[in-house]
């Protein structure tokens, strides 16, 4: 759970850096949605992370104070209102702390219905997607390491539910397996997916108990309800 928030240790620092690397995208989306140009948004996001890592701000957040998501958003808001001027003067043009792919971020942003989303909603929506990307990436990586990349590529569409994929018979034919084996594989794939999803969420919340709650919250965000 949220190692980054535990203490002011090198380990916490590394964990924070890793989380930043993972969740830059929602923050970037938020800054962009607030109306900054892509260049400014990039600088701001970098500046915010520098600020976080430098001030060890996370160390002051106790794990029971809530989710990493809310914490980051609150911190970013604070940073944007107060720290920007200062940070801008000092940090602009400095080396990048983390690398990010603004191109893909911009593509995603351009696909969102801009008129209906608030910056917060954009942040949360992108957060949910980033989280799913994490899970998906880990799932793919796991399969790749077990030399099951082909199986994963074929079955990955079944992750979202039965209606989302070709019939099992077709999948079975493609993989050269029998239908029963495909069903078992799909079942395992989904189970692993759910476990990874919860694991990944657990990294951003304070306690095991909050995982399901966060999951439901994310679903609400994604369905726009």
């Amino acid at each position: 759970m949220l190692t980054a928030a535990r203490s002011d240790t090198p380990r916490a620092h590394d964990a924070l850096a890793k989380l930043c690397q993972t969740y830059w995208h929602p923050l970037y989306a938020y800054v962009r949605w607030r109306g900054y140009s892509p260049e400014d948004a990039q600088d701001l996001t970098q500046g915010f992370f520098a600020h976080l890592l430098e001030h060890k701000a996370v160390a002051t957040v106790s794990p029971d104070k809530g989710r990493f998501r809310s914490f980051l958003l609150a911190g970013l808001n604070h940073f944007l209102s107060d720290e920007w001027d200062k940070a801008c003067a000092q940090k602009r043009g400095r080396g990048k702390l983390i690398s990010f792919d603004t191109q893909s971020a911009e593509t995603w942003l351009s696909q969102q219905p801009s008129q209906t989303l608030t910056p917060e909603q954009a942040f949360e929506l992108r957060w949910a997607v980033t989280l799913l990307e994490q899970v998906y990436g880990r799932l793919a990586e796991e399969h790749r390491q077990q030399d099951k990349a082909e199986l994963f590529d074929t079955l990955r569409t079944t992750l979202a539910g039965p209606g989302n994929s070709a019939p099992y018979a077709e999948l079975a034919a493609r993989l050269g397996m029998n239908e029963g084996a495909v069903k078992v594989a799909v079942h395992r794939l989904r189970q692993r997916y759910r476990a990874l999803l919860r694991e990944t969420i657990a990294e951003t919340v304070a306690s095991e108990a909050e995982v399901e709650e966060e999951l439901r919250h994310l679903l609400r965000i994604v369905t726009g309800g």
Partner: protein
Amino acid sequence: MATENKCPHCGKPVPTTALGGICPECLLKAGLADTGEIGPGGTVVAKPTSQPAPRVEEIAPHFPQLEIIECLGRGGMGAVYKARQPKLDRFVALKILSRKRDDGTRDTEFTQRFEREARALARLNHPDIVAVYDFGEAGGFHYLLMEYVDGLTLRQLLSRTTERKLSPEEALAIVPKICEALQFAHQRGIVHRDIKPENILLDKEGRVKIADFGIAKIVTPLTPSLSPSDGERVAGRPGEGNLTQNQVIGTPHYMAPEQVEKPATVDHRADIFSLGVVFYEMLTGELPLGKFQPPSRKVQVDVRLDEIVLHALEKEPERRYQHASEVKTDVETVVADAESRTQHAEIGGARTQSSAARDAVWFSTQLLPDWLPGERVLHFQQRLWAVFNHSWPTGRFFFSLPPLWSAGMYVTDRRVLLLSHFLGIAQRFSLWFPGKAPDAQREMLKEVSVGRSGLLGEFLELKSEDFKPRWWRSRELRIRAYLRQPECLRDKILAAQRNETASAAPTGTAKTKLGDLPEAQSLPGWVQAARWTARVLGTLWALMFLVFLIGEGSPAMGRQPAVVQIEFAAVAIMVLGCVAGWKLNLDGAAALLTLGGWTLFHFAEHRVPAWSMFHVAAIVGLLYGLTWAWARKRVAVIAIFAIPFFFGVVAALNLTHHRRPPARVADATIPQVPPVVIETVPESGATEVDPMLTELRVTFSKPMRDGNWSWVKLDDASYPQMTGTPRYEGDRRTCVLPVKLQPGKSYATWINVDNFQDFQDENGHPAVPYLLIFQTRK
């Protein structure tokens, strides 16, 4: 990866992500819902998301007699709502089974089946079956009104652990109850058809309740070829009839093979199969899918359980258990055997430590008066028991600790019980002293352990209720409940209790009642110093004393055994004081224990050296007391502390008083002090004395009464041969004894001794005794 994909599932546009074109919404939904799984026989469970439950507002108008509170859940069988019956002031569970068809027509077959089955269900009256209060149709909804169970489903219980399983003992406690309920229903011709962890509820008292009896039969037509009514899903085989989606009700993993293959022939033995699946899952955390391993291969359980589980999971109903009661009997046989073996093992000493110590710790927490800080004492007890269970070489001594200490708690409430406790212990103390084999010690350990000794029995067997203190009565109920729990649950009870006490007294509100201190940084320097000095000094002192008592102070060194015992007890009390100071921060208790032990020691010892190491105890007590008194800032507290200290000081002064000279020299006048020998001829201790010497001379510090003297024999041989009577010289300070000495001989004579005190000054004070001893030259 197209940029404007449409999700084939929900139809929404899929934005460009790293998800490989999968719709995030559907992906997240799939992650949330634990459904859509692949079951045996290639069936797929109906997705509840595709059939949303009616909203509370939607159904509320149809149930004016109920206050619908919330939707509790939704499954393939329909939705369940928590509701209240205002008239009866009770909560009920409302199960909505179906909705009216869109075209307004009714499935008459369904209605008939529903009424027939519901009536049968309402007749099922068993404590382990969720009762059906009412059923009917309202506003197009078929509903069942059922008992509301406040608790968890077995599924929720399973998912609480990371391995998603229970301990074998827990599983074995639950399974017989399920069997009972099933047997009861089966005898009345009702088959559950959907036994699974979701349908097994455990209420807050730990009772097992089976929900949804027979509902599957209501909502599932017996032949798969019938077209399903709206909101229903029908079991089927892949490619069979018009059911291309292969959907079935419920969770197919738990279904008996014949339920999928020949739904029309299903009988009560299908429930036994499902029970076998549940049992397997409880034990191993996994489902018995495909070629599964017997439970004992996966977890450490009795091999006979494998037989039971596998017998229940037989593919052919004919080869399975024929009655649920048979499962129960078999499980209970295994449990009973395991228990008796456990007890046997305990007698052999194998499991004594863990279970006996655990029980003892738990029981002793129940014995505490309310004002004792439970958490601290619990920790203390555990340490104590750890020592106790460790069979120290000095075991005899440590065996005495727990009875003494538990007695200390009794004294707060019932002295009579204390007495009876000690009477009981006294018998056991015959084992206390010499030469018992380790086995006997272990037996005694069991005997004396608070949980199992006569101590508890004495309490429980008391008939007169008013003899028990009020705080005890509630505890007794708890203890009785605890004793009914199977071994396996006791650890959990203890753990839960520990959490409770830990969270109940986070800042020490409860524990300050005894007057102790937290590890506070706010203590001023001198108080901290006092506390630390007391701790260090007290520990060093206790260690020194123990070494002394075990070594020099033992009966083997010629001391009276009774005194040694009392002194051990005294030291035990003082050691408790040390522990209370170091480990519990109970400075007040530490002060009282230290001083109390110190006083007891003085009683045993009768006399004390002028400044012995035992006085260190008084200092330790004083420092603890000061710390405590400062923290409490109350005169009463200071008084309580001061009383034993005062008496201790008085006792010490009295005891040391008569060892000292009656008068102090500095204040005395010369006439009042006794005369002393200041010079002799020859000197006492001289070796080369001339044998020709004819007079022994002794000179006193002041003039003596003339005519009085006491030259006293040490023995006949060493007394010099007198040649005349003694006489005083001019100033009467020197007395002369005429003698005849022989060469090479030792001579000795007392000047005043015992009853011979005739060397006196003019006021009649006898001279201080003196021994003149010398040797003549050869």
